[in-house]
């Protein structure tokens, strides 16, 4: 989701979605297990699973902490992906 500022009002346009590259990063960083990452981030393994599957959007603090663990910019792991017009219609219908 993208927040677009219109004056002082914050509106959610719904043109973007959160893309999570956490699994890819984990595997690239010496096959770091979900359990180990959860331990390093101070959360449960289920939380890591849910973030990877897109079921849960982490807080800014947790996203930054995960980025810090991988020593990478946060936007490499969590980024915004534009939803195509046709795809939006399909999502709306689903």
């Amino acid at each position, binding site marked *: 989701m993208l927040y677009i500022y219109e004056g002082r009002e914050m509106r959610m346009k719904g043109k973007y979605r959160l893309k999570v590259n956490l699994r890819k990063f984990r595997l690239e960083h010496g096959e770091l297990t979900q359990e180990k990452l959860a331990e390093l981030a101070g959360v449960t393994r*289920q939380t890591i699973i849910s973030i990877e599957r897109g079921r849960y959007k982490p807080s800014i603090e947790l996203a930054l902490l995960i980025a810090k663990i991988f020593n990478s910019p946060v936007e490499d792991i969590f980024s915004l992906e534009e939803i195509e017009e046709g795809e939006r219609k399909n999502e709306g219908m689903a």
Partner: protein
Amino acid sequence: MKAWPENLPKVATIISGSCFILFLALGLLVDRFFYAFAVLSVVMPDLLREFGWLTDMDEFQLEASKKASHHAYISTAVFSAIIIGNSGMWMSNPVSSGEIFTLLFVLLVVVKYSSYFIQFWDKKKASFRILLFFAIFWSAFVLLGKHQYIRTILIALLAVPVPFFVLALLSIRFPVFTGIVSTAASILTVPFYLIYFYPRGLKSFVGLFGSFLLLSLPLAAAGISLLTYSMKNRREVSGGKENEKV
């Protein structure tokens, strides 16, 4: 110190759950004064977490717990309104305030924990656990009941706990089928109670709604979550196939 296993309920949940059962039993058997402690024992961990004095959950668990509490609050409010609004239905057969309290509180606890499981765990895993929990619960209910004959116990076990066990096992391999069967069974139990049992006086008001809470509600929760899991899974698989073609 070794971390507490994730698959087990939190220490605070185990303590509060045990206290809840103990005080509820004392409230029913000794004095309704104990109901106050039953309420406290269930809400205490959440209150402590709200004030930041208990930090046994991460942000995802806290969010799931807050959403589940919200669902429990709404359903209990609606159910209370139905009970008060239809008080004429049971005024002829006086129901003690203790029984009404037990019903409302059981509803709150069932909705809260079912909703929490479904949000926190994978929907399929959560449904399996809900069905398994109620299979064990109903088995204990039958086995601890005052049945004189083994045949009666076997029939009672076959009537409710065994179907719950079977559905729990089927949910692992056949989520769509189990979802449909569970949802259909939950819908069918409602007219069955209302049309068959209640007019014949076979079930009291409390027994009727108690059975609804502990039979139809878990079936509906597990069934609907299995169906949503299957639909989402199917969408993801077909989406993946389309991407592969591109």
